């Protein structure tokens, strides 16, 4: 194997903030890291800073493989997962890392996710049925599943909601992630909770606050076509039914028609 890898020196700017220590404002700390491999991820850099330079640096991470959704943060002005962002994607300048916008900072890159999960809960993200369980699996055809396939890829990282100007302006807005989750159940052939769910989404703080800015779509690490799902939820409220969504056998992928 080729052991000759081009290494580079990277300047990492991190917004540090410790409200518990009485700091009222965040401040920038700059760390210089040598021997960085362009294939390193921003998460690797943060781990190195924590291990080598500043043990008090706080951030969340778990799987390190883009599936747990715990390390969404604003990297070079855009929300991304630190574990899915390679150094070489970010050009040659300094790398800037900040916590997600619009949620209170607990420490450094850790934000208070409670409001985010409250919004999630408000749209009833579980299957609602009216009839007795039959004791058997509830089956779906591939076509039926295609309507919720894209939405079920969501890893609840909050990158979308905290990239949304409507959410920054009003943190009562349920936000794109909650709408994606709502749509995952709204268009589920097995679910019967649409009436209540659509009421929540038709509220003053519901789906109408979407201004089709598309920051969420840019930010989503799962490539979910969020604005499409938001549009379908708007239509479901307008038409009073969810039957209008065409069967898309490749939901979430380009459809050559």
């Amino acid at each position, binding site marked *: 194997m080729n052991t000759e890898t081009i290494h580079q020196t990277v300047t990492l700017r991190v917004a540090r*903030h410790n409200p518990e220590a009485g700091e009222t404002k965040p401040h920038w700390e700059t760390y210089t890291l040598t021997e960085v491999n362009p294939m390193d991820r921003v998460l690797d850099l943060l781990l190195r800073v924590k291990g080598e330079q500043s043990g008090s640096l706080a951030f969340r991470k778990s799987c390190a493989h883009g599936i747990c959704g715990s390390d969404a943060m604003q990297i070079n*002005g855009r929300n991304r997962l630190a574990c899915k962002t390679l150094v070489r994607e970010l050009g040659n300048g300094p790398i800037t890392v*900040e916590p997600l*916008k619009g949620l*209170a900072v607990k420490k450094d890159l850790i934000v208070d996710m409670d409001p985010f999960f409250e919004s999630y809960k408000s749209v009833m993200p579980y299957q609602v049925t009216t009839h007795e369980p039959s004791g058997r699996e509830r089956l779906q055809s591939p076509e039926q599943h295609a309507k919720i396939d894209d939405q079920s890829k969501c890893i609840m990282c909050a990158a979308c909601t905290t990239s949304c*100007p409507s959410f920054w302006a009003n943190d009562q807005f349920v936000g794109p992630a909650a709408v994606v989750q709502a749509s995952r159940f709204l268009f589920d052939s097995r679910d019967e909770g649409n009436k209540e769910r659509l009421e929540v989404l038709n509220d003053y703080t519901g789906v109408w606050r979407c201004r*089709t*800015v*598309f920051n969420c779509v*840019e930010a989503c690490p799962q490539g979910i076509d969020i604005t499409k799902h938001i549009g379908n939820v708007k239509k479901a409220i307008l038409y009073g039914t969810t039957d209008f969504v065409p069967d898309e056998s490749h939901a979430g992928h380009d459809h050559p028609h």
Partner: protein
Amino acid sequence: MRALRGMYQLKEGQIAYILHRVTGVAVILFLFVHLVENFFLLMGPAAYNAAIGIYDHWWFRLGEFALIAAVVYHSLNGLRIITIDFWQRSTKYHKQMWYAVMALSVVTCAFVAYRMLWLYPGWPWMAHASAGVAP
């Protein structure tokens, strides 16, 4: 405490949204000017004529052009948003649609600028110019 620090990147969708907001507010503000000026109708012809006298100034001409530009962009981008809301496949092309909106706006405004500004005889640097000449 809410955290808002560095700028979030501005991509097509957000620029489209900011322009939509700014042009929307501009049009509303003009509406107020327009209403106030119409109120002078109640005070007789002399007062009204004095009020609409500002229409004769070259800087008002510029303002009117800006108003039309705002209306043009706001309408075209409005159609883009309606398309996005109602036709689910169009979300993939929202950037292209915005470039189309911008191109159409520029073309329309260029035409309007020709009629309203280029052919306008009332500019202060024009020797024969006197306020109140309209083509």
